[in-house]
Each structure stands twice: as structure tokens, then as C-alpha cells.
């Protein structure tokens, strides 16, 4: 392995970014690659962020030429985003949210959802591949400059994924990366990347900012998703007084972010305009969230402004006349953002969940409740015990009903706003006080837009031995659902028990085996099992069987599947198998079925994760 660089890639829902550092250089600094991308139909510009959009050109359009591919028929990046705004059926967005949607076949060509028939739809995996392919091509041109030994395929690459990604979504991300030719790959949770970026930015001072017993809450609010993690500062078992970091809890996948806020503000502005009998046409509706984002950023960054004007021109070449003008007042901004997204609530508040509809159109499982503070309260309550059993963490028993963070690290462009950070801090302080804990202090000094990519590169340096690594292992325990034999009762599904196959916190390179007991597969047939994950059951070991569990403890994931090849066995034979779980060096979960009576020493079959869902 002769990688010269470590490359961190933030594969975001709305933007991607790439940062890199030289591996062998003392005190190597992390640089951000300006990514060449189409910005108009005919021109390319290098920008630090690559918007995560694919636009499929119609045959009437010229090529989406890139310096390295003059004949390309689709565009990725800024031009895709702006072109797609006026031609939305040909635009693919939010691929990452689809990638983590367990209810669909994520390898099937389904996107863009409403694509016209001349367009060949692609899968969420392929969309992720397209972003990585673009970054890889940009790297090979801008950094490697044609030198094959410097190509991205030869470098150490760290790709970030939400902490809330389950084993299946992680594996699909790896699949996309492999397709893009990325061979030396590691996955890293985004909130951890944010903390690595903060540590890198603070230099050695971070050891003064944190002490044993601290719990850092990472609040990562991106364009489309919100992700929480808790990282405990523990005493290193090696040297007295030395610090170690352990990621002790991750939150659920919440499809809620900065874009929702812009849409909410656009809704307010549109209602005002329509109250004045001004008609907002389709094109102006597209422009409204952008204008509102600008107003939001200005109002949030300058407390002296009472309002900010919103002006939308008419679409034709006559600029004056059909234009719309309104303004967003501070009161409206506060009402929409603070009350809508960051309301001051009790620690007992919980997000409302939608009533289950019998028939729903295929779509993303967007968060039903926009109140991020409620999601946060739910996270802290669910994870109240997260730090107690961690080796090296002082104070064995928990007090109160919540996890008690002592510091908070913000990430994501939305959190640039002092007012919104303040709202989260105020909520945390109130909850902590009521729960008998001390105040929570903010950790400042990270780059909220590019922190994840930078942190991923910094993690690459850590892996190479330059710095402290956050421990944690898998953020979930995994279970296979086993139907218990019972007399059939129409309308009542057979009872299911959950067999733990991979315990919580499995570290990379470790293996958990459980003896063959009740699992049988049929030779030559595809057998699928229900699959569950839990972010809270920390004590279960491989082989633990749960007959019942609390409603929120286990989440059903997309089913897993194994096919036994017929070679050497009679098709139709039933073969008892044991399960073996391993966490690979890449950071994915590998599940295998091992026959009780293997025909060769290493006979085993891979169990496919994230196969077609039932939705």
C-alpha cells in the first residue's frame, strides 16, 4: 500500500465535499479540493462544494461536457441543481435519503421518481456512485494530474455516513464507492468526523477543553438530515490521566434539515403574497426558498435588522411589472424557525408520529414533526444509560432520566446562526437543570460547512498513527427475526422472536459467532429473514434471544437473504446453519451462514443485507 494521501469525502444529502492531507508529511495540513463542475450548460468552474444532484439532459440539449468527458449526457453538481430547478422531472436529488430507505429496493432504477420515459432511471446506489465518480475524476485531474500512482484508487479514502445509517445503508455506500474505483476505503460516522475536525482545528488545546467525564453531544443538522451522537471522554486504560474518546450513542435517522427551514419560510412568504392577491407562479415558487434562505441568513447574522426584503422578479425579459415583493420580518423568522424547528419544550416532549396510512405513495419517510428539540429530547431520554457502562467513565449509575451531555458540538451550515445554536443550548440547559445536571458548554471553532470532509481526512491521519482515535464500534446490535411455530390464526401474524447475531459496539476486525440452533436454509432456494437493529440494547450478546421487547427498542430493517448453492447437495435439502457476524476493516457488517456440517473447512455463504423491502 503506497498511498501518498488520505482523502476524506463527505457524501452529503445536498452537498458533497472532498478534503485531503499528505500521509507522510510531518504536521500535514488538511486541504479542501475545489471540485471542477459544470456551472452552466457550457462552462466549468471549481467550487469547494459539489451539490448532490444529477440532471439528465434531454436529447434536444447538447452534451454536459466536462474537461475529461466531452460527450457526457448527465450533469452532476451546480449546473444539475440550477438546471433541474426549471426542469424538475429530469432532476435526481436526495439520493442519500433514498439509500437509507429500508422500504424500497435500493439497487433498482427508481430515480428520479417521476422521470419521463426517455430517461433511464437509476438506483440510489448508482446516484451515490455518480457523485463519487465525479469526485474521483476531479481528483485524478486536479491532484493526480494523470499520475496513476496518485489516482484516487491508490489513496486511502474515508467516506462519511450518517451515524444513523444501518448496516445495509453502509454496505450500499461501499458498493457505490467500489463501483467508483475506490479500493482502500473506510467508513466514518459524520458526527465523529465533525469531532475529528474540531480536534484538528483546536490542535493540542482540545485536551484542555475536555476532561474525563465529559459527554460531547454532536448536533449535526445538514441540508436534509439531522443526526445526533454522544461521545464520552474516558480515562485511557493505558496511561493514568490520559484521555480516550468513546462514541456511546447515536440517534435515529431524521429526514429534516436546513432545506425544510427554507421551505417553511417560503411558505410564510407565499401566504403573505397571496393574502395581497398576488399570484405566485410555478417559477417564482422555485425562486422563493432561495430568496428566503438569503433573508434567513441575513436576519440571523445581523440582530439589528428588523426585516429583510424578499424580491422575486417575473420570469420574462421584462424584469419590472410582474415582480413580487414582500419581506420577512424578524418576528416571522423567529416564529417559523424557533417555534417550528427549535421550540423550547420540556424534556418529556416527544416528536409526534404520523398515523399509519393504509396506502401511501412511494416517497421518502420525512420526519413528521419538524421540532428538532423534540427529537433531541427523545434521543437524550432513549440514551439515558449510554455512558454508564463505558469503561473508564466515572460515575457508574445514572442520575435523572436523561443522558447528560456536558458539551455540545454543532455541525452543518444551518447551525452557523447564533440564534439557533442559542435555542438548542437554552433547551439543553433547561433540561439538564430539571434533571439535576450541570450546564452544557458549546465547543467552538469548527468549519460548519466543510467540517465533515476535513474531519474525515483528519481521521485518515489518525488511522495512520497521527492522533487519538474515537472508539465505539457498531452503533447498533443486530437481530434476526425467527418465526416461532404456532397454530395459524387468520389475520394474526405468527409470533417472532429476535436472535442477536451481532452485539452493540463490535469493533472493526472482530467476529461474533453463534452456534447453529434454529436456523435452517433450503439448498438451491433463496431464504430471507427479517432483520432488526437496536441502538439501545447494549447488554445483548451473540445468541441472546428476545421473545419480547419494548416498542422502541428494536427497529425493523430491510430483510436479509441467503441462497445456498446446490453444488454437492441435493436441491430441496434442509441444511441447519449457524451464523457468523464480522465487522470488516472498511466498517461494514458481514453476516455469513456456516453449515453445521460443512463440506470443506471454510464452507460458508454470505448473507445479503438490504435486499428488496416490502414497501
Amino acid at each position, binding site marked *: 500500500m503506497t498511498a501518498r494521501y488520505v482523502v476524506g469525502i463527505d457524501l452529503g444529502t445536498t452537498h458533497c465535499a472532498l478534503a485531503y492531507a499528505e500521509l507522510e508529511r510531518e504536521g500535514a495540513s488538511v486541504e479542501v479540493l*475545489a471540485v*471542477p463542475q*459544470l*456551472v*452552466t*450548460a*457550457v*462552462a*466549468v*468552474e*471549481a467550487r469547494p462544494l459539489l451539490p448532490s444532484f444529477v440532471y439528465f439532459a434531454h*436529447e434536444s440539449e*447538447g*452534451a454536459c*461536457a*466536462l*474537461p475529461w468527458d*466531452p*460527450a457526457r*449526457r448527465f450533469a452532476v453538481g451546480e449546473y444539475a441543481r440550477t438546471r433541474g430547478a*426549471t426542469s424538475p422531472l429530469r432532476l435526481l436529488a436526495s439520493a442519500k435519503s433514498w439509500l437509507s430507505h429500508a422500504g424500497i429496493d435500493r439497487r433498482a432504477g427508481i430515480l428520479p421518481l417521476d422521470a419521463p420515459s*426517455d430517461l433511464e432511471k437509476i438506483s440510489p446506489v448508482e446516484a451515490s456512485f455518480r457523485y463519487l465518480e465525479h469526485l474521483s475524476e476531479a481528483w485524478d485531474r*486536479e491532484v493526480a494530474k494523470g499520475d496513476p500512482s496518485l489516482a484516487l484508487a491508490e489513496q486511502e479514502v474515508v467516506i462519511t455516513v450518517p451515524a444513523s445509517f444501518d448496516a445495509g445503508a453502509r454496505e450500499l455506500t461501499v458498493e457505490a464507492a467500489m463501483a467508483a474505483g475506490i479500493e482502500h476505503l473506510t467508513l466514518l460516522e459524520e458526527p465523529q468526523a465533525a469531532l475529528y475536525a474540531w480536534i484538528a482545528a483546536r490542535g493540542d488545546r482540545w485536551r484542555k477543553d475536555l476532561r474525563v467525564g465529559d459527554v460531547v453531544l454532536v448536533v449535526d443538522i445538514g441540508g436534509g438530515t439531522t443526526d445526533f451522537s454522544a461521545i464520552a471522554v474516558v480515562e485511557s486504560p493505558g496511561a493514568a490521566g490520559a484521555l480516550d474518546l468513546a462514541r456511546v450513542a447515536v440517534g435515529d435517522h431524521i429526514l429534516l434539515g436546513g432545506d425544510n427551514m427554507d421551505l417553511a419560510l417560503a411558505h410564510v412568504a407565499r401566504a403573505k403574497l397571496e393574502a395581497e392577491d398576488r399570484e405566485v407562479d410555478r417559477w417564482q415558487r422555485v425562486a422563493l426558498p432561495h430568496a428566503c434562505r*438569503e433573508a434567513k441568513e441575513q436576519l440571523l447574522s445581523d440582530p439589528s435588522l428588523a426585516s429583510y*426584503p424578499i*424580491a*422575486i*422578479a417575473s*420570469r420574462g*425579459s*421584462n*424584469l*419590472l*411589472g410582474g*415582480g*413580487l*415583493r414582500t419581506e420577512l420580518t424578524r418576528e416571522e423568522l423567529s416564529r417559523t424557525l424557533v417555534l417550528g424547528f427549535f421550540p423550547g419544550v420540556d424534556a418529556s416532549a416527544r416528536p409526534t408520529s404520523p398515523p399509519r396510512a393504509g396506502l401511501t405513495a412511494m416517497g421518502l419517510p420525512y420526519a413528521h414533526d419538524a421540532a428538532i428539540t423534540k427529537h433531541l429530547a427523545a434521543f437524550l431520554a432513549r440514551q439515558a444509560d449510554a455512558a454508564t457502562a463505558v469503561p473508564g467513565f466515572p460515575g457508574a449509575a445514572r442520575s435523572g432520566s436523561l443522558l447528560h451531555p456536558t458539551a455540545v458540538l454543532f455541525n452543518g451550515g444551518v447551525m452557523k446562526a447564533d440564534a439557533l445554536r442559542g435555542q438548542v443550548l437554552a433547551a439543553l440547559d433547561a433540561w439538564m437543570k430539571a434533571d439535576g445536571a450541570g450546564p452544557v458548554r458549546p465547543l467552538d471553532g469548527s468549519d460548519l460547512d466543510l467540517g465533515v470532509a476535513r474531519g474525515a481526512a483528519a481521521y485518515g491521519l489518525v488511522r495512520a498513527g497521527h492522533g487519538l482515535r474515537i472508539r465505539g464500534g457498531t452503533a447498533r446490535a443486530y437481530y434476526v427475526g425467527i418465526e416461532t411455530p404456532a397454530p395459524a390464526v387468520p389475520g394474526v401474524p405468527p409470533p417472532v422472536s429476535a436472535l442477536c447475531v451481532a452485539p452493540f459496539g463490535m469493533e472493526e476486525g472482530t467476529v461474533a459467532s453463534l452456534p447453529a440452533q434454529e436456523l435452517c436454509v433450503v439448498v438451491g432456494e433463496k431464504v430471507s429473514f427479517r432483520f432488526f437493529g437496536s441502538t439501545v440494547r447494549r447488554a445483548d450478546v451473540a445468541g441472546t434471544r428476545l421473545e419480547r421487547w419494548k416498542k422502541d427498542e428494536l427497529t425493523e430493517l430491510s430483510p436479509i437473504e441467503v441462497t445456498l448453492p446446490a453444488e454437492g447437495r441435493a436441491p430441496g435439502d434442509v441444511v441447519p446453519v449457524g451464523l457468523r457476524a464480522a465487522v470488516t476493516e472498511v466498517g461494514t457488517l458481514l453476516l455469513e451462514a456456516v453449515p453445521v456440517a460443512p463440506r470443506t473447512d471454510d464452507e460458508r455463504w454470505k448473507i445479503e443485507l438490504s435486499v428488496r423491502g416490502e414497501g
Partner: protein
Amino acid sequence: MSSRRYGAGVSPPLPLLTRLWFAWACFFRVLVSGDAARRVWSSLEGEAPAAAPSPPPEVPRLPPAAPPATEVTIGPALQLLALLQREGRLVDFLEQDITAFSDADVGVAARVVHAGCRKALRAHATLGPVRTEEEGTTVTVKEGFADDEIKLSGNVKGEAPFTGVLRHRGWRATGLALPTVVRAYDQTVIAPAEVEL
């Protein structure tokens, strides 16, 4: 990145650059598309092209005829104009007769133009004042000053050093980076006509 960068006072690129891009685009089109190759061949040989089958979707349109040399040299200027129109509707604004409109209407339009053009300008040009003193203060202009940088006005007589009031700080572009054109296109189109289907 390979954006073209010009310092202040540097002449625009040679037509050769555009010719290179055009040759590059032609090379690939001819390579990947038999149809494009046939049409290029026909135009070079002066034949009338045979009835073409409907082109497969991967075939890019034939590039427009190479523009005359005078248009090529103003390419970057047209590109900047297109940028300001795209981001800030500048051409729409300047080309419309605004006399009949109220100040409120003009204000709405001015905000659109200002916000968009400002964003575009700041993303592509680095601008700074020529003189950093506050306007209205008394400044001294030393001997040997560059007359490109400073324009003396009013009671102009005598010899340097001159003492006077700074009326305008001036502007200097220390950098201008326009997007790199990657395929042949008709540069004279500042904004395409738009037809909604």
C-alpha cells in the same frame, strides 16, 4: 483549477484558445458519433448530406459555425455579460424602459439585480479600492504616481506632490476568474429563449 485568470490590464485570450476548444469538441464528436463524423465530412467535402436517420440520444448537436475572429476576442466579455444576466438579470433590467414604473417597482427589480449581480461579481472577481483612505479626507499624491490609478480633477496645476480631497476611492480588480468553457457554443447568446412545455 484551470479557470482563466487575468490581472488588471492583461489582454484577453488569443482566439487560439477558442479554436483549441472547438477542435477538442470536434475530435470527440467525430470519434464517438458516426453521424457527426459523416456530417463534418460532408461539410468539409462540400457534399449535401444524405437524409440522416434520427440521431441517437448520445449524439451532441453539431456545434455552431466557428464565430468570426472579432466575436471570439470579445468572448470573455460576452461570458461576463451572460453571467450577470443569469445570476442577476442585468441585461433584462438595463434593456427595459423603466420610466413609466414607480420607484417601488424599480426598487423590487433593483434588489433582484443587486443581489444576483453582487453574488456573481464577488464569486468571480476580486475587487478592492485603489486608495484606502476615507472619501472626503485630504490626501497627498506623490510624485511619479500612476495616472491609471489616480485622476486629478478640479484646480489641476503645478507639480507633484499634490494635496487634495479624495472624492472617489477608485476600484481595482485584482483577480477575475471566469468559468472555463468546455464545449463550443454560440457565445453571442447572452440568455437562451425559454419555452416551457
